């Protein structure tokens, strides 16, 4: 267990805090200037001002952050962790300060702060707002709590790059409390009070509290806590101007609350803090919504959504709609992106001088950027829909329902979202695994996700099932579904194996706070989706781009001269044209097209990728592949969808990603060097099983390394899945042989 951060009492020892209720020299409880800022009168705006945003999950903290920063924020990781650090700039000085202080402070506080108060504070200035991870308590030994403690103590920089000014505690902290669950949230406020930092409380989701009949005396609460309390509703934007003004005032003057809360270590201290919180709540809150109202509307909805049958049906419907949206709707922007980049590639080819530079730009760079950006619609769609579902409150209930199904495999209920998303694409699925708090369960989910049949595998399945069952769609569909089922089984079993071996360890059975049901915010979901999309392009996107360029190079070099057969065809084409016969142009064009296909096929065979196919042929011979199929498999390790195009070029000389009847017929008729069929039934079954189980997506490996916490996990994933795929292909090849295929 890592050493506990120094408690606030040790820090507070340097700043004498009057007992609760004691008055300052002016006869009113007041805020104490933080001696870090000096005399409190100097202007701090010449240096970078950082404000930390602290709160429990489900308090609307992220919505508040998005509202305050808009699109002016960036996402990085806290140094040495995989936890996100979002920071953005906030323009300060919203509402006139005097009015804001009167609304945010009790009479005593307002009198104290009001002395010498300027009309405005921080106008035209801005601060850096850091969104800390949601925590139920600062005193837990979980990573999120340790990180928040470190940031508030000034020991953990929030910028991975350790940019200048990122050290030291923040100039102020904004504690976001859920008005509908104030008693429990006040314990976190008490822990924040003990940190002795300039502080403002944002009493968020106040509209929901009012709707439930709850009455909260915000001014009384500010007197009790000794700091400004601003009533906010992040979804509507209410109170944000007052919040900005309060932050400007508190950070600018370094005003630390004199009120504190019981502290110390251990269960006894936690109990004392809870009692304190309940006492404060009892003083400032009341009304019809103050107590439990028995069988509430939420209970009635929960009865349906968590019912084994009705809840399961709703779950299948919701997830099916989500899956269809990701799978179908994202196809349109993906198609537009492919069209745009095809056009850009063509424009580059037309404009650039012939030669290596033109090929590198159009085939390498433009192709690679297009291959990266094309993932964006699916990633953004998944994140958007997950954000919407989370905002409604449904996701927590669905996780509870799925927990029974996934628990035997060592996975939590929350894992269903990543596993479902992986059926569209593993990249957003791995990102979605961030919602899983336990590290072991999160990594196990990341390792399982790529087994799910993603959209990139589908062209391969279509090709192979079409070759196996020509003219028999029913058997083909059954084989298709079998591939989906095999992927799911392999994924959850792999998760189980991981949880029993390298990720061994008991995790707390699921306990999830169920947020209130509410209408989701489209704006927040959109902003979250855009944020993730930008993060993907900046992070994994750069790696993917580099890998794609390398792959292009392997397939394009070394240059080989055209085969003699192609040269002969071109000579014949020239003769036919020169002869001046009636259909000479058409025949000549046909001969030249045929020559072009032979040259393309010969070039791919002679490339480094083609040579690797011959080198590795003995490795794949036991599973039924010759050097051509081996080239297709090797090329697919970068991205499995290239298998169809690679086989098309090697066999027919033509680029084609579409599995049409013509391509299927040509591949079906293709021959090996020994004259036998290229796509025998046994080889086709072997390929099908291989593609279900193999890790053939370098972008996914990059994301695994990022999200699981190291290259080692990506390597382990590659080795495990490749081994499983080879073993499965071997079994399929031999079993299909025994069965007479």
């Amino acid at each position, binding site marked *: 267990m890592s050493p506990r951060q120094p408690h606030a009492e040790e820090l507070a020892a340097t700043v004498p805090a009057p007992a609760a209720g004691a008055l300052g020299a002016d006869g009113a409880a007041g805020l104490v200037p933080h001696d870090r800022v000096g005399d409190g009168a100097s202007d701090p705006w010449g240096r970078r001002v950082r404000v930390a945003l602290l709160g429990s999950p489900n308090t609307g903290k992220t919505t508040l952050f998005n509202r305050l920063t808009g699109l002016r924020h960036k996402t990085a990781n806290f140094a040495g962790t995989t936890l996100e650090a979002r920071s953005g700039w906030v323009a300060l000085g919203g509402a006139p300060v005097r009015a804001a202080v009167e609304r945010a402070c009790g009479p005593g506080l307002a009198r104290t702060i009001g002395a010498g108060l300027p009309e405005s504070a921080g106008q035209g200035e801005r601060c850096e707002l850091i969104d800390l991870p949601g925590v139920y308590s600062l005193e837990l030994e979980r990573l999120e709590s340790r990180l928040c403690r470190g940031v508030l103590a000034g020991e953990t920089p929030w910028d991975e790059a350790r940019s200048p000014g990122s050290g030291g505690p923040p100039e102020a902290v904004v504690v976001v409390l859920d008005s509908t669950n104030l008693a429990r949230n006040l314990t976190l406020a008490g822990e924040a009070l003990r940190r002795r930092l300039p502080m403002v409380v944002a009493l968020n989701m106040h509209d929901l509290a009012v709707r439930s009949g709850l009455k909260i005396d915000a001014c009384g609460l500010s007197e009790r806590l000794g700091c400004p309390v601003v009533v906010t509703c992040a979804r509507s934007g209410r109170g944000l101007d007052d919040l900005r003004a309060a932050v400007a005032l508190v950070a600018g003057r370094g005003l630390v609350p004199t009120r504190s809360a019981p502290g110390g270590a251990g269960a006894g201290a936690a109990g004392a803090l809870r009692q304190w919180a*309940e006492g404060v709540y009892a003083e400032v*809150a009341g009304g019809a919504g103050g107590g439990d109202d028995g069988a509430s509307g939420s209970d009635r909805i929960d009865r349906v959504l*968590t*019912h084994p049958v009705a809840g399961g049906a709703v779950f299948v419907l919701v997830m099916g709609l989500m899956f269809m949206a990701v799978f179908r709707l994202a196809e349109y922007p993906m198609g537009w992106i492919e069209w745009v980049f095809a056009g850009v590639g063509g424009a580059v080819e037309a404009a650039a001088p012939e030669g290596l530079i033109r090929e590198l730009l159009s085939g390498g760079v433009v192709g690679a950027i297009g291959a990266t950006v094309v993932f964006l619609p699916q990633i953004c769609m998944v994140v958007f829909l997950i954000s919407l579902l989370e905002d409604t409150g449904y996701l927590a209930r669905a996780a509870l329902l799925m927990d*029974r199904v996934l628990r035997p495999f060592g996975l939590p209920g929350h894992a269903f979202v990543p596993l479902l998303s992986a059926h569209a694409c593993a990249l957003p699925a791995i990102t979605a695994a961030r919602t899983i708090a336990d590290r072991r369960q999160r990594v196990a989910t990341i390792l399982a996700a790529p087994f799910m049949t993603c959209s990139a595998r589908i062209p391969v399945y279509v090709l192979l099932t079409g070759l196996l069952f020509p003219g028999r769609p029913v058997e083909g569909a059954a084989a298709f579904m079998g591939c989906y089922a095999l992927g799911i089984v392999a994924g959850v079993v792999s998760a189980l194996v991981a949880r029993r071996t390298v990720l061994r360890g008991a995790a*707390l059975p699921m306990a999830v706070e*169920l947020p209130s049901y509410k209408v989701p915010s489209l704006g927040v979901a959109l902003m979250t989706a855009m944020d993730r999309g930008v993060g993907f392009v900046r992070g994994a996107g750069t790696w993917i781009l580099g890998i794609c360029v390398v792959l292009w190079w392997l397939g394009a070099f070394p240059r080989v001269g055209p085969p003699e057969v192609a040269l002969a065809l071109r000579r014949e084409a020239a003769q036919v044209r020169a002869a001046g016969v009636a259909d000479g142009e058409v025949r000549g064009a046909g001969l030249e097209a045929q020559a072009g296909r032979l040259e393309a096929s010969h070039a791919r065979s002679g490339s480094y990728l083609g040579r690797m196919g011959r080198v590795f042929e003995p490795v794949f011979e036991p599973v039924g592949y010759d050097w051509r199929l081996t080239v297709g498999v090797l090329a697919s390790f970068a991205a499995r969808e290239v298998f169809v195009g690679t086989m098309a070029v090697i066999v027919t000389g033509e680029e084609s990603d579409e599995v049409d009847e013509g391509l299927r017929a040509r591949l079906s008729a293709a021959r090996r060097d020994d004259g036998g069929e290229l796509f025998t039934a046994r080889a086709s079954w072997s390929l099908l099983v291989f593609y279900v189980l193999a890790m053939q997506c370098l972008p996914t490996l990059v994301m695994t390394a990022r999200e699981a916490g190291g290259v080692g996990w990506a390597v382990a994933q590659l080795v495990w899945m490749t081994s499983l795929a080879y073993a499965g292909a071997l079994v399929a090849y031999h079993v299909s042989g025994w069965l007479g295929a």
Partner: protein
Amino acid sequence: MTMTNATTIQPPAPLGAAQARPHSGGDGGEVGGTRAGAAEVSLSALRVGESGVIRRAEVSGDDAALLGAMGLAERSRVRVCLSVGGGGACIVAVLGGSGCAAGACGSSRIGLARPLAERIFVTRQGEGVGPGWGS
């Protein structure tokens, strides 16, 4: 929570079985209407609508601290809102601790997997009043 680190965990009771284990006080006798010496039962044994006061949990210290921070602390009052039979989850409303007069501290809803609900022990308060799924 009384069980804050693994070395003080008492021998676990069979999972899912009601514990005829007298609560040995420590709260001055009356806590929200619970008599001293009342039998402890696992949270999963409560019926929908029944309330209880949390006494202990058979979890590690870190996990107990997390549950406490979520509101499931020793002496917190909880009411079972929903219990899915056949090993399903249960949903409880957290009504606050002994400092809350008449439980008027607002409430939050916590969903618990059945294995966890079986490891949290409470003393009953009041009778069950509502239907549930197989509970």
